[in-house]
């Protein structure tokens, strides 16, 4: 059997990070957790990952900065933004910077996985 695909979970809230990771592992992925932006960027650039679930408000480096830098290095990597920011302007900014999809919190874990699979397939 092939190794499971690795998904980076960049989320500073420990509860949510564990929740997303748990759901992803249930679905047969391997989750790699990062609890701040710097760690998330390092993992995104150095590890062989298949997608990122990316929070925006994180310590050290916010999700928007992470997205910009990841896009420069890996233009096609699927990135789903998962944020409490629900303003139209936030969504536009993220999509313009190359996010593959945008979900707001609270969210249904089932839907997150669905949309993650979708953007990975589109890729």
């Amino acid at each position, binding site marked *: 059997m092939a190794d499971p695909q690795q998904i980076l979970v960049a989320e500073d*809230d420990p*509860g*949510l990070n564990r*929740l*997303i990771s*748990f*759901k992803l592992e*249930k679905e047969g992925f391997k989750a790699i957790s990062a609890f701040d932006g710097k760690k998330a960027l390092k993992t995104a650039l150095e590890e062989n990952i298949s997608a990122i679930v990316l929070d925006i*408000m994180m310590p050290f480096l916010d999700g928007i900065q992470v997205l910009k830098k990841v896009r420069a290095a890996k233009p096609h990597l699927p990135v789903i933004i998962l944020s*409490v*920011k*629900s*303003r*139209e*302007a936030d969504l536009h900014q993220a999509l313009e910077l190359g996010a593959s999809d945008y979900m707001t*919190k*609270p*969210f*249904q*874990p*089932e839907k997150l996985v669905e949309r993650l699979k979708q953007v990975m397939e589109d890729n």
Partner: protein
Amino acid sequence: MSDNEMNHRQNSAQKEKQFKIPEGASVLTEILDQVSDGIYITDPERNIVFWNRAAEIITGYRQEEVLGKRCADDVLEHTDQAGNKLCSTELCPLYKAMKTGKPTAAPLIVKALHKEGGRVVVEVSITPLRSPAGDLIGGIEIFRDISAKVELEEQKARFFSSLSHELKTPLANMQGYLDLLLAGDAGDLNETQEEFLTTIYNEEQKLAGYIEELLDMGRFEGTDYSYQRNILDFSPLLEGLARSFSAEAGKKTLSFSHKITPGLALFGDRERLSQAFGNLIGNAIKYTEKGTVSLEAEFNRDSDEIIVSISDSGIGIPESEQKSIFEMFYRVENPGTRSKGGTGVGLYIVERVIRRHDGRLTLKSVPGEGSIFTVYLPGFIKNNDH
């Protein structure tokens, strides 16, 4: 005029006789120089002929540097908050007042150039100046530095943004873990456990909805100073809303139609207008089970207004309740038909946003037949043919 007022007037008139201003004293200039609002006067060609001391302080330009110059010639160039130049456009308040001969209806918030670079936020009112014979001989602009108030609003916005984060993160945890439990991702549940968790889940959903609406209210309430009013292409904004709501109407097998005149534009806050019209269209769809919902927008050249109407064939609003629906937390009591949830801040936000754009809103509704909300907003139309 009441008797008291009459007496007061007479007394004042007598006092005026007793106290005579010595001839040659420049009382008017003294007064104008002492007020804290910037004031300048132009001739009909908009050349500056008077510039008070507060104007010097607010803009950094001394009187001798600006006298004789056109206001738009690098002195006091006004822009919207995003930096688009208003000078010599329909949106320049001075240009408009001189063209129409009418004072500005409400103070306009714009940014003005400072001599040292950078911009200050000012609130501007204009009055055309007429000779005793009634000829237009110039204009007076009064502007107030409101940078400090704007800063306060920005602080408030930052507070709401962080409050939003603090409230939604725990909610997201609760909802997410409940979802996992109910989906059986953490093992099978017995019937009672499932029932109890479902109750928690439903209540959590309600709480999440309320928090969302209250945060919206905090964000949209704000004073004028929190509005980001810029030159805004309004037709594409409505087209965008129409696209996203078509999908929603499709889920209910409603027919949704829209007819939007291209080129509509206004001086407005994109996010708030988008929220307000989103609320109106969203409500129309929410309270209509079958039939049609339609969105139309056109321009009335006589009144310089954009007219947007949102009509539905839904449950309607009884006449006795039509006035109250724009009040905060008001919800129509319509036994048996209204179980749609919500705190009743949606239309309140709509009304506030429209009013802040100097617009107005009317409602026609017949219970059982439907409702038509019509919004009138001062605006203009961009013509591509010249």
